[in-house]
Structure formats: C-alpha cells, structure tokens
C-alpha cells in the first residue's frame, strides 16, 4: 500500500537529512506504529505519503502509484484515498460536529443524500451518535478526536495516517481512541500511526518501525516501544 524506496529528505541544503535512505513496505490492511523521538522524521514520513513534500531522492509509492509521476493537479485525488488524524484535531471551530465531518464529503462533490446518510452512520461508529449538533469546543478532547477520525474515515479511505492522535489525551481516553483505530483497521484500512506513547505501543503489539535521526533502526512485527536493539 505504501512503499518507500531509499527515500531521503533534506529540508535545507547542508543540514542533516530529516529522512535518510529509508526503505519500507506497508501492506494493505496493516497497522504500523512509527516511533521515535521528536525530530526523528516521523512527520516527514507522513508528509511524504500525503505528497505535501517531495523526496530529495528515492521514490515513494502509494496505492501502487509512484508519487513522482502524479501531477500536481491530481494530488487532491490521491488525498481522497488517505484520511488524516492529528494531535491537535484540526476541526473547524465554527462548524458543528456534523458539518465538520460532512465537509470531507462536500468538497469532493458527494451528493447530498449520501452525505445525509453516511455522516450519521460514521458518527455512530465512532461513538458520537446524538452529538451531531454540538460545536467542537463543547466536546471533550477525546470526543473531538473522534470527530476528526470520523472525518478521516467518512470517505472510506484505503489509508489512515495518524500523527500522534493521542498526544493531547489522557491515558484512558487514549485507549478508547486506539480501540477505534483498531476497529477501523479491521475494516481493511491500512493505518500508519506516528506516536511516542510507549504504553499504547506496548499494549497493541503491532508492527513497530523506529526512526532515529531520520534513519530506520528497527522494523519489528508485534513489537514494543523500547525494544532492545
């Protein structure tokens, strides 16, 4: 689903590369934790998948396509296959829960009746049934993240990228969010989650990829956060 071939990314000339010769393959339906300290290249990895950045060298394949061959105006189509969840939720503060999720369908031109049925379905799935008319600030952090996950998943993308989705949440709430992501994963959606929450990684026992200073130092099935090298 996602394939990195000797990918390097250098932001400023002469600086240490953010990613250094990373090769990695993520299969369809996999759940991968991307772990490492801040600045280790986790976010750069995700940005490359989204084609917000282009690699300095090497190639990135997403859903079978070489991103170097995807023309700029087709990038939106690529992104429709990818859902994104962030640490800071990124909800629109003036729009209701329903509107925040619906926007993902509206901007790609889904017909109204489909929006009216799919959005409540998805909200129910993430456990927010009955809260459609709330505004984001009326919700708890965990609930806001559920809205963001609903938005990421409402178009049934092939891939969900999560950039420290539990970074702003307490441990109990985080467990709930992880259960939700796990459920989404079970529908066949590939999930790549960047995190430094060791407890969660240790509990989930999924594939773990560790980055240190832009280099991939570990790729372990059913791994833990701080495994011995």
């Amino acid at each position, binding site marked *: 689903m996602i394939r990195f071939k000797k990918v390097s990314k250098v932001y400023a000339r002469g600086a240490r590369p953010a990613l250094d010769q990373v090769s990695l393959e993520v299969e369809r339906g996999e759940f991968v934790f991307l772990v490492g300290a801040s600045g280790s290249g986790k976010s750069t990895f995700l940005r490359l998948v*989204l*084609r*917000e950045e282009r690699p300095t060298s090497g190639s990135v394949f997403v859903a079978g396509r070489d991103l170097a061959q995807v023309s*700029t*105006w087709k*990038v*939106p*189509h*690529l*992104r*429709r296959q990818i859902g*994104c969840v962030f640490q800071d939720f*990124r909800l*629109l503060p003036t729009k209701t829960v329903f509107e925040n999720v619906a*926007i*993902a369908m*509206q*901007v*790609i*031109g*889904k*017909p*109204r009746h489909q*929006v009216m049925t799919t959005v409540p379905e998805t909200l129910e799935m993430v456990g927010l049934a009955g809260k459609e008319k709330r505004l984001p600030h009326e919700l708890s952090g965990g609930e806001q993240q559920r809205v963001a996950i609903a*938005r990421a998943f409402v*178009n049934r993308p092939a891939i969900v990228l999560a950039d420290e989705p539990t970074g702003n949440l307490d441990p109990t709430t985080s467990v709930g969010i992880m259960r939700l992501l796990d459920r989404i994963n079970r529908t066949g959606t590939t999930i790549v989650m960047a995190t430094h929450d060791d407890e969660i990684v240790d509990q989930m026992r999924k594939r773990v990829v560790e980055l240190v200073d832009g280099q991939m130092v570990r790729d372990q099935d059913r791994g833990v956060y701080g495994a011995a090298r």
Partner: protein
Amino acid sequence: MRVRFVLSQIGNGLRRNLAMAVSVVLVTFISLAFVGAAILLQTQISNMKDDWYDKVEVSIFLCPASSSVPNCAGGEATEEQVEDLQAVLTSDALSDYVDEVYVESKEQAYEAYLEQFGDQDWAQSITAEQMQMSLRVSLVDPEMYQVVADEVTGRPGVEYVVDQRSILEPLFLILNRATLLAAGLAALMTVTAIMLITTTIRLSAMSRRRETSIMRLVGASNLFIQLPFMLEGALAALLGALLAAGGLWLGVRYIIEDWLASSVRWVNFVSTSDVLLIAPILIGIGIVLAAISSLVSLSRYTKV
C-alpha cells in the same frame, strides 16, 4: 451540494471581510466611472464631429475693392476670376475632395449678416456694398481641407481661405485633454483597484487558512478551494461596475440631458442610451480586473 457549499463560503467570506469588500466595491466604482467618463467624452467628440463636419465649409474670400493683401493688388475680383476659380474647384483634380461649390454674393452675405446681427444698433451702419463676396466649398472629407486650400491660395482674386473647422478645433482640443485626464485617472485608479482586490483576496484567504488547509487535507481540488475567493473578488468588482454605470447614468441624465442639453441647444450631447451602451464594457473591465487580481493573489495558494 457543491454549489450550495461554494455559495455559503462566499457569503461567509464577504461577511467576515465586509469593510474590505466595501472598499473594493468603491474603488472599482470610481475607477470604472473614470473609464466610462473617458469613453463618453470620446463619444461626445465623435458626435460633434459627425454633426458639424457635415455643415462646415471652406470659405474662399474673394478680393474686395480695397485690400492690403498683395494678391489683391489688382482691386476687386472680376467675374472672370470667379469663374476661373469655380472651374478649378469643379475640375477633375479636385472632384474627389469637393462636394459642392456655390457663390455667396455680397447681398447674400449681407442678408446672413443682418439675420445674425440685425437687431444690433451698430449693425445698421453697414451696407451691402461693404460685405465681401466668397466661394463656399463643402468637402467630401472635411479633414482634407489642406488640399483645397493649397490649390486655390494665391490664385488671382483670392484674398484668403478660411476653414471653418479651425474654429471648432480649440473645443475639440479641450475635450481631448479632458479625455486624457479622465483616462489617466482611470489608469491610476485601476492599478489601485487591482492592488486592493489582491490584498483583499489575500486577507480573506489568510483568515480562512485553517479551513482551506483542512479542505486540502480531505482532497478538495485547487479550483474548489480557490473558486470562492475568486467569486468574492468578481462579485465585488461587478458591484463596483454596476455602481459606475449607474453613477454615469445619473450624471448624464441630470447634468447633461436635463441641464446642459436644455440650455445649450446647438450641441448634440451624449445621452443615457450611450451610457447603457458602455455599461457592458465597464462590467467586462470590472470582471477582468477581478480575474487578474485573483490570479496574482491566489497563485501562491495553489501549492498543494
């Protein structure tokens, strides 16, 4: 769904940036009003040329009994000289230029004179004998005056040649200068309008950065993201153009049609129908303005 969504985006944008939107409308209004004024002035000039150039004639004044002009040393122009001149003017060489030639005798000149000044006391002391005989030439193309003038000047019996058009020239000069002034101001205001619309769109885009970044994230196309901003600019410019057309219409209606046209009857003034003719031009310019500004300001937001 999409149309509704775009419309609501535009509504939000305009409401949030109301002051800027109003200033865009006003600046476009003023700049296009100047553009329109320049076009109307030119229309006026060509109206007047059409009207008057048909009526103006070249007058060839013939030598009177006493004249200080050397060409008239031989005294009053003779019948023979007059016939010669008529022959020259109707010859093949000048037939392309000359439409009609007739002789204004002293008596006819006197009648015209009396008609114009007859009610003045001082006019009574002038007699028909003191008037000057002349040949009146109407031209096919009034601009070709010089050809005719060159041909007859200096021939026996000709005192001097007057082109009536030269009397009108100063008026046209003033109108042309006014056009230049209006066009200059229009250009200046247009630049201002473009910069203001650019800034407004940019501000609007900045204030909605969060929204657009999320839309981009969920796969909205560039056009879809930019369209509301472009339409906002276009809408404001369109309003400005409509205001400009309306303003010019009112100006022509009340200043020219009601006031000037009733006090100065000998000029065929521009009318409100001329304004209606240039209104589409103004609207077109307004939309082009907005389009250019959108391109300039949104090009930096097209990065995906």
